[in-house]
Every structure is written in C-alpha cells, then in structure tokens.
C-alpha cells in the first residue's frame, strides 16, 4: 500500500520499525500534492517545504537516537483555513482576510505542535464556513476526489478532500452545523464533531460561537481517537471549554457492541432521503444487530424544526461575530472611503462574498428591534425542545444512528442558486450542534455511481467513548 493511503497509526508503526523515514513520508505527501492538487484544489496555502522537511528530519533524528515518538509525531496534517498557525496565512477563504497573517497559534495548533505533528498547509472551505459544498470560497471550489465534477461537501471540504486524496494523512475541520461530518461523508473519510466544550476554539475564527467545534478528519476511527486525544481538553483561553477528566480515547477502540442500545430515529428516514443512502444505512443497522447491538426505533419529534432554528441562531451569532471585520485592525480596507462610516460600509461590501453578506443580513434582521422576540428568542426556545428530544432519547438508548446526509455528493453548481436548498443539505447534522452533543460520520458503503455514503453516530454530551467503540466495531465489521 502507498504511504499516502495509510492511516496515521500505520505510518507510526512503520516509523518506529524504521521501515520508513519521516522525510520519506513527507516527500510522498508532496508527491501526491504535485499529482492531484491541480484538479482537487484542497489547499489554499502551503507551508514552506524546506521548513516542513526540516521538521521531518528532526523526527528522524529522534528515531535514530532511539527516542520514543508520540503516537502522531511526524504525521502530516492539513488545517482548515479558519484556524491560526503563527506566521502563516488564515484567510477563511475570504477576500476580507486574503492577506491576514496569524500573529499567534490557536490552542489546537499549540497542542499539535507539542505532540510533533507536521503542518502541510491550510485547506479550502466555504467563506467563513458558510456553506455545505466549499463552493462559497473566494479562491474557487474544491473538487471531490471520487468525482471531480462533484462537491466535496462543506464547509471543511478542503480538509476532507485532502485526507481522501492522500494530500495529507489527517486534518482538522470545524463543525457548526455539519461542516466536518457532511464533507467526511461525501469524501469517504471519518469526521468527528466533538461535544461542545471538548476542544478549545481559541484561535478559530468564530462563526457561531454557541455551535462551533473543532474536530478531526481522518482515514479511520483509530486516527480520529488519536487526534482527539491531542486536541481536546480545558483551556483558559476559551471560557466555554469544559474542565473534566480526559479519557484516553484509544481505550474505546474495542470491537464489541454487545449490550449497546442504539436508537434509530424514525424522522430521519422520511421523504427526501436518497434510496441508496437509506439502503446502505439499513444494511449497517442490520449488521450491528447481528453482532449483538440492540436496535430500537426512537423519535426525535422536533427534527423538522432543526434547520429553521439553526439558520436563526447561526446567522444571528455570525452577524455579531463578523462585526469585527471593520477594515481597521486587520483585513481588507476599501480605498473608496472619505468618512469612517464609508470605510466600514465599503470595506465590508467589497471584502465579503455573497453568502457571507446574505447571512450577515439575515442575522442582523432576526436580531433587529421588533423581530428579536419573534425570531431569535423563538429560535432559542425551539433549541430547548430539540435538546430535550435528545435528552429523552438518551434515557432509552446509548447512541443514535442516522445517515450523515440525505444524499451522496452533489454536482458542482447544482445548488448554488438556491440558498435554501443548500441549507437543507445539513438536515441530519444540524441537531447535534444545537444540542451540543458529539457526532461522527464514518463511511458505510458506496452508491452505484461509486460515491461514498456516510453514517452518523450521535451520543450524549461527552459520550465520545461510546461513539468510538460503536464506530470502531462497525468499521471493522464492514471490512469483513
């Protein structure tokens, strides 16, 4: 098997056995980038190659000296371009941040550096993570490695495509309404949105602060657990990060689901879901049942209100968060201004893309005097109902299994003219963000057109261990 196709834990074994050097791993990734990046466009920027190779050389020297490596030390990682790496660009795929150089490291980046991962570059995304297809990037779309005419999903489409194509071994994405899980599903990789508060967001450009979480995009479930081990934990710099004891997530990689109660929500198998997706998910459900899990039909009665609630809360928060882009302290400044007010209005008009403006305007509207109660407050109340749905369900079951997305990857351009249609692509992933709970997407099969299908497992808050155990078991069983 080629190095660029291997998961990180296997590369680690080869490194430790000295069957391969870290510099060779990095060169293979560079080679893959050279072959594929032209047609995929997973990245927005690359780190200096000599710098990257110097870091690899250090890992090789450590190995030569008989020093022990961290589990992901020397592993090439791609970072979504909304997380700050000191001295590197962070553009959020927006013109307004086209030339922004991060003056500090995000907490996740600091943690990855401490454990020796090697950053390859920053990946493409929908501008400010506003989208489900990576088409809303100022720098052009990313193409799905399985079919170049299709989207990789979004908003972390560049990260998912990079891992799927072997342009990186692992990656980080961010997930506000499905932005890690849906592209993972479309690209046939594993994507985890951790519990709200599990991973610090310090240094992540905020989209909707009550929903955003950073998480791993990997080739398999083992890598996902390894990467979550590195990035999770309390951080003083993020007051929403939760201070609880951290488990070793790799301890949950046990191929055993006997006694697990897994809920299947009836509301997720209604009209609009692709037949092949449905069949593939049902096959996995049967498989889990055959190996000892107890499957129960459950109900999440407010599922249908998820998207409406989400687009009120997320846009309201986005309009507030994006108020910081004023053309003064950083970012694009319009030359066309005489007064301070014009400076704001023109810099933002010229710097933000179409979808960013649409969401800021919608968010400003739902927060404006006279509409706040009718929309924003209403949204917060329905959020309570959605959260309560999950609380009820998790009294009966350990985890919930659903499709990640109602369809496989759609064609580039198919939904760009209809924002509402695009929003509906997130129907199965949005509730987890609203409820603050963790969710993973793992590949569970292919359509006739050879497009990957993703399966989602949800668990109660801080129930990532359950997710890993079920996902790992299913992954191993599907291989057989």
């Amino acid at each position, binding site marked *: 098997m080629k190095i660029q196709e291997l998961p990180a834990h296997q590369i680690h074994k080869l490194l430790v056995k000295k069957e391969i050097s870290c510099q060779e791993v990095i060169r293979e990734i560079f080679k893959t980038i050279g072959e594929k990046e032209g047609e995929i466009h997973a990245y927005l920027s690359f780190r200096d190659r000599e710098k990257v190779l110097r870091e690899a050389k250090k890992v090789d020297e450590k190995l030569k000296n008989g020093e022990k490596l961290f589990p992901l030390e020397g592993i090439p990682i791609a970072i979504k371009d909304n997380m700050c790496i000191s001295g590197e660009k962070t553009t959020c795929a927006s013109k307004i941040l086209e030339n922004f150089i991060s003056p500090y490291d995000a907490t996740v980046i600091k943690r990855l550096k401490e454990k020796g991962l090697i950053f390859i570059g920053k990946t493409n995304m929908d501008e400010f993570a506003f989208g489900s297809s990576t088409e809303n990037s100022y720098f052009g779309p990313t193409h799905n490695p399985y079919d170049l005419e299709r989207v990789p999903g979004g908003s972390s489409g560049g990260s998912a495509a990079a891992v799927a194509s072997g342009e990186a071994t692992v990656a980080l994405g961010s997930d506000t309404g499905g932005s890690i899980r849906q592209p993972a599903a479309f690209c046939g990789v594993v994507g985890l949105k951790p519990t*709200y508060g599990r991973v610090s967001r310090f240094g992540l450009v905020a989209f909707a602060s009550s929903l955003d979480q950073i998480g791993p995009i990997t080739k398999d479930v083992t890598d996902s657990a390894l990467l979550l081990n590195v990035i999770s934990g309390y951080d003083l710099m993020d007051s929403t990060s939760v201070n609880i004891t951290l488990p070793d997530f790799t301890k949950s990689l046990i191929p055993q689901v006997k006694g697990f109660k897994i809920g299947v929500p009836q509301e997720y198998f209604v009209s609009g879901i692709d037949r092949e997706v449905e069949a593939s998910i049902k096959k996995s459900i049967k498989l889990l049942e055959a190996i000892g899990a107890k499957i129960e039909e459950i109900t999440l009665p407010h599922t249908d209100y998820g998207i409406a609630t989400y687009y009120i809360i997320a846009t309201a928060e986005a309009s507030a968060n994006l108020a910081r882009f004023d053309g003064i302290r950083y*970012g694009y400044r319009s030359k066309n201004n005489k007064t301070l007010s014009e*400076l704001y209005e023109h810099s*933002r008009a010229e710097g933000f893309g179409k979808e960013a*403006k649409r969401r800021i305007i*919608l968010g400003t509207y739902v927060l404006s005097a006279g509409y706040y109660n009718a*929309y924003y407050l209403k949204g917060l109340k329905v959020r309570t109902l959605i959260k309560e749905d999950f609380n009820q369900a998790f009294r009966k079951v350990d985890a919930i299994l659903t499709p990640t997305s109602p369809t496989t990857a759609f064609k580039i351009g198919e939904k760009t003219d209809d*924002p509402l249609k695009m929003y509906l692509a997130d129907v199965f992933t949005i509730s987890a963000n609203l409820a603050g709970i963790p969710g993973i997407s793992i590949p569970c099969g292919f359509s006739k057109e050879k497009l990957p299908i993703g399966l989602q497992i949800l668990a109660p808050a801080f129930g990532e261990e359950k997710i890993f155990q079920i996902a790992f078991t299913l992954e191993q069983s599907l291989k057989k």
Partner: protein
Amino acid sequence: MVSNVKQLTLKKKTDKIIFLMKITKEDVVYISRLAKIKLKEEEVGQYQKNLEEILLYVEKLKTLPTEKVKETTHILSQFTPPPTSSPLEGEDKGEGGANRLRKDVAVKGLEQKDALSNAPAKKDGCFRVPKVI
C-alpha cells in the same frame, strides 16, 4: 404565497402570533445599514428575495407552542458550576450563572507590533482611520 402563510399561522394556536411581514427593498437597505454593508442595487433585490424565502421557511417555528419553554443560552450549562447564593441570582447573568471569568491578574498578551502587524494603515503605534470629525 405570503397571504397563505398569514392564514396558516392564524389558524394554529401559538403563544404569540406574528404576521409574516413582506420584506421590502427599504427593509433590506435599512438592515444593510445596521450591518454596515453598502449594497449595490441588484444585491438589494437579490437579498430581498432570499430573505423573504428564508423567513417564509422559518415561519414553521411559529406553529410550535413555546410559552412555557425556557430559552437555551448555554447549551451545556449542566457542566458549568451551578449558581450559589449569589446576590446576582435571578438576574440575566446567563443560564446557570454561566459567565465564567478568570482571575483578574495581568498576563502576557499580544505585543503591540504583533497586534498592529495586519493593520491596513497605522501610525505611531496606532491604527489609522479617516478623519472622524
């Protein structure tokens, strides 16, 4: 389409019936001023259409009775320290008193030159803006 929704929301019993407003171009211009984004004429028309469609979709929330439902402002408030006998309790301090502040001690922050490193215009260690008055 808009008038249909009016009837529909009136038929259902909700805690607060709000009529669906037709979004006018003037509304969009007003909102864009609040958001400090200067829109072009064609953008005003486009966003007017988008906003109306999205708000029409969002109308479905109004069919849900939520009179007795408490709004969620902190999704994982059960993981933050519960309110004590604080004299501020009952005030809008966030669900579960979840405003967590660190100790008020000086720590090293971003250096001035780093904070200014991305400024489009600066002078004498300050961000430079057009004349205000």
